[in-house]
């Protein structure tokens, strides 16, 4: 089934939010797993890669010129991507301050 214009719009508007979800689930889940299996060393790498990828995705959403003609929806998708970027950076910051698995 081809997604209708509404489904496409919903995905665009919420894409920033879902990037945040993926990033948060990744850093939390893999840190928990790595610490449970005594692999503290991989945590900084994982979090850094996930954060760069997520920040890149948010930036891409912010700069992408959606063909969507509706100004409000376009603004909302960019706003959510910006909010997600802010949250992603804030949440990854502790990596610089706290030893993994302590």
């Amino acid at each position, binding site marked *: 089934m081809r997604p209708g214009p509404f489904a496409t719009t919903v995905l665009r508007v919420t894409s920033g939010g879902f990037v945040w979800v993926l990033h948060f689930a990744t850093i939390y889940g893999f840190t928990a797993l790595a610490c449970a299996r005594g692999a503290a060393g991989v945590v900084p790498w994982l979090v850094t890669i996930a954060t760069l990828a997520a920040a890149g995705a948010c930036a891409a959403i912010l700069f992408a010129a959606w063909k969507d003609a509706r100004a409000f929806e376009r603004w909302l998708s960019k706003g959510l991507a910006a909010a997600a970027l*802010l949250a992603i950076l*804030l949440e990854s*910051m*502790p990596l610089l*301050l*706290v030893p993994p698995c*302590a």
Partner: protein
Amino acid sequence: MSLPPAQQSALAPHGTEAAAIHDLTLVMTAGAVVVMVVVMVLVVMALRGSRPGLARTSLVVAGGVVFPAVVLAALLVYTQVKETRAALGGKPDVTIELVGHQWWWQVRYLDGEDALDFTTANEIRIPARASVEVRLKSADVLHSFWVPALAGKLDLIPGRENRLRITAQKAGTYRGQCAEYCGGPHAQMALFVVAQEADDFKAWRAAQRQPQQAGGQVRGAALFLEHCAGCHTVRGTRAAGTRGPDLTHVASRISIGAGILPNDAASIARWVGASQHIKPGNLMPDFGMLDPASLQAVVEYMGTLR
């Protein structure tokens, strides 16, 4: 007689962690007051209709996005960088295993090789200014170890062992209380932490290690073996029950009933006779069937367990 004065306030810290958290509390409270005042001043100005120029999106962005983002990033760095909870590395001066039970605390002192030194209950003695590791375990449900004057809390979880380092900055008596709801008389699951000078602690520890001599107050001892030994241990005697607190040196403790009653003859008599009235739902049955003379004998015997 009543329980000795003891601290149970995070606002009067006497431990390194509690002191650090107290600093953090003061800083954050001051910040919160400032923000609260600024916001309320803006509201009052709005109500007076004196600043129509504030009705702009830029106020929303400045106050709702930029300001909190900057302040929160700073706060996050501050809270993460500030050393509050001591790291677990390095050998502690004293190691204690604390096992939570519904509704009392089993306290097991470990020696340098993590082997059991002796067991006591509902009271922890530590040397002042020393690093003490408390290993937290649970025998049944969730509990939480919290002595506010010394440190923040940490949970006791079945199947897990949590470790906490505490240091009392000076000698004193500090009260703690189970802080994770554990059913029934959760409110009456307290304990005392007594920080002593190093020599006093050493003497106490040596005394606690000793078993009791069998015999003693003969009638009371016999009654104790008959009625109490199924659940309680008195090392050196045939009393070796493990369901309730170890009572080997019970007379040396501050409190009975897990930190809720003073340790005197009248309280012990009340407790043994009607603990279900004092602490409803606790796992010790009432021994109301003991005649007054027998009860008195048991109480006197317990008074000899110094």
